């Protein structure tokens, strides 16, 4: 990663003693996401899940760390790569897997599927399928908070592939102009489908786009979930206290292909292995051990995740499918407009 820009570093998370229980909690979330994604991949292979399936494996520290910096009443908007974000925001594994299975008990009654996870109760405002299309929408969520005089913050996630499209620029421009309480999080995983960064952007440093809009920015490698939380936390505070947006670019890496149909031939095994070496989830686990959080406790925590996932799979398997009666009332509220 080049060092084109070094935005002012926020207070180092190492300055304060690490709350081990909190780190264990974040590790559990990352492990849950990893295991849910692995089950999803398996279910895709056996045909329980159809359509597109974009896994979050490798990027867990971004979603978990960023969302840990939020209050429950803060909102999140993201792309089709939304499973990890939804879980981190509080959606249950049952609700998520049932949705992927297309079941009535899924978060969107089986109508949305993998790319469109919504959970109003947890202020998860959706995964969206058109690249960049959700960015102005997320600004609208932030606009509503400001309009209503509430100090709620919105997080908007997107990949570096979205930085080329109009929605990104219009969203950032308006957020800066109108001082909206939003944090834009670019999950820069180096590839937009098969296209590497070098063929996507003329300037590799995405965070620099913030300068032109007069917006604060930050940029770092998302290896350490606590650092993610601290640095996004600073941006969230800026949004909450000063009503000012921030663009945060995090370098991360997806361990799987773009979606299940992508064999990812555009990168080498060596490159992939290097990134797996620095797997942020494994790092968090190792950190726990160095902090005297004993192996036995970690295993217990992992076992509880396995149980949660097994229960969610069973729940999804046994749930009923929706029938056509859901179609009209989910199209219009009130009378159908023929």
């Amino acid at each position, binding site marked *: 990663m080049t060092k084109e820009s070094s935005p002012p570093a926020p207070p180092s998370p190492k300055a304060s003693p690490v709350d081990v229980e909190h780190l264990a909690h974040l590790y559990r979330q990352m492990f849950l996401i990893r295991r849910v994604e692995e089950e999803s991949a398996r279910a895709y292979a056996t045909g329980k899940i*159809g359509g597109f399936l974009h896994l979050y494996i490798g990027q867990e520290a971004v979603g978990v760390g960023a969302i840990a910096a939020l209050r429950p009443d803060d909102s999140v908007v993201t792309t089709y790569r939304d499973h990890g974000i939804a879980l981190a925001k509080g959606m249950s594994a049952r609700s998520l897997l049932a949705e992927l299975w297309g079941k009535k008990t899924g978060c969107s009654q089986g109508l949305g599927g993998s790319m469109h996870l919504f959970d109003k109760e947890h202020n998860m405002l959706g995964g969206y399928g058109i690249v960049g299309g959700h960015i102005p929408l997320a600004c609208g969520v932030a606009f509503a908070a400001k309009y209503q005089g509430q100090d709620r913050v919105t997080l908007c996630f997107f990949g570096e592939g979205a930085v080329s499209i109009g929605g990104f620029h219009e969203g950032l421009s308006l957020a800066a102009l109108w001082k909206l309480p939003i944090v834009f999080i670019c999950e820069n995983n180096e590839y937009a489908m098969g296209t590497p960064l070098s063929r996507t952007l003329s300037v590799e440093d995405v965070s620099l786009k913030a300068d032109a809009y007069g917006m604060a920015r930050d940029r770092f490698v998302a290896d350490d979930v606590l650092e993610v939380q601290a640095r996004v936390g600073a941006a969230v505070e800026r949004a909450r206290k000063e009503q000012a947006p921030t663009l945060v670019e995090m370098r991360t890496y997806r361990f799987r292909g773009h979606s299940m149909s992508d064999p990812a031939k555009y990168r080498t095994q060596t490159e992939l292995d290097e990134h797996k070496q620095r797997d942020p989830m494994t790092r968090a686990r190792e950190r726990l051990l160095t902090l005297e959080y004993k192996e036995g406790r970690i295993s217990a925590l992992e076992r509880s995740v396995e149980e949660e996932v097994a229960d969610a799979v069973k729940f999804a398997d046994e749930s009923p499918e929706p029938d056509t009666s859901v*179609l009209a009332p989910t199209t219009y509220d009130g009378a159908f407009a023929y």
Partner: protein
Amino acid sequence: MSNVRQLRFREALREAMIEEMDRDERVFLLGEEVGHYQGAYKVSEGMLDRFGARRVVDTPIAEGGFAGIGIGAAMMGLRPIIEFMTWNFSAVAFDQILNNASKVRQMSGGQFNCPIVFRGPNGSAKQVGSQHSTSMEHFYATIPGLKVIAPAFPVDAKGLLKAAIRDDNPVILLESETLYSVKGDVPDNLEPIEFGRAQIVRPGSALTIIAYSRMTHVALEAADQLATEGIDVEVIDLRTLRPLDEETIVRSVQKTHRCVVVHEGWSYGGVGAEIADRVQRLAFDWLEAPILRVAQLDVGMPYNATLEQACIPQPGRVCDTVKRLVFRET
């Protein structure tokens, strides 16, 4: 006599592009993942190697941007082929197609042409959800200045794409993810196929089914089922939506006296509505039943597999609709 080969739909499209790029240096391909990745659906496989990065151009995700670049280049005499990874994403470029591509000729009083082809998969695939399953032809077919083509068979895909590339107007070519692997006979040295000529793909007498793109295959399947029940329907494959082959449609309805239109996408103001209007205007005295449409149910595409299949026109729904007209009590 020329030889005939079996080609997949995607290979037929590829051959059309390669042949036209070989014969005309002004033709180039531009779109997401068309080069190094060999095409999201492998339509352009091998083309980067063959033509190089000058003529097979990978773009970032910027549909409005690269559609506009294509239009400007076309005004200067180049002949771009713009691939949308799917037509859903053309919504982001809709302004370019509606307000620039289709209008530049008229706004300039005929001084500038826009010889460009926009192509990619359209409509539903399989459980790809609400935002990836829209049938965009209904939006584009309404726009004067554009031509809109939607082949169902490899031979037509090749011949029509060749014609589209040579056309001096903006052309919208709608493909289908579910058709890319379909095989069909394609003669060697195929000439461009003229727009505006539908084809009777199954002759019959009881009723006319009008379809295009993937729905032609659904209509043919329905026709087979109906035949086992003694109902002999005619199936027309439109191939081109704009211009529309009124003559073939009207002649068929004059023979069968009944008509059903089958298409993906919603019925409200769609291609089927346009056909129904023309048939009732031009063949009113021959009609013995109302014209019915079999379209996507009037809702967004649900993810659940069973509901999705219920929304998309199926042979069963086509058969039921045909029977309602054939056994209609008067």
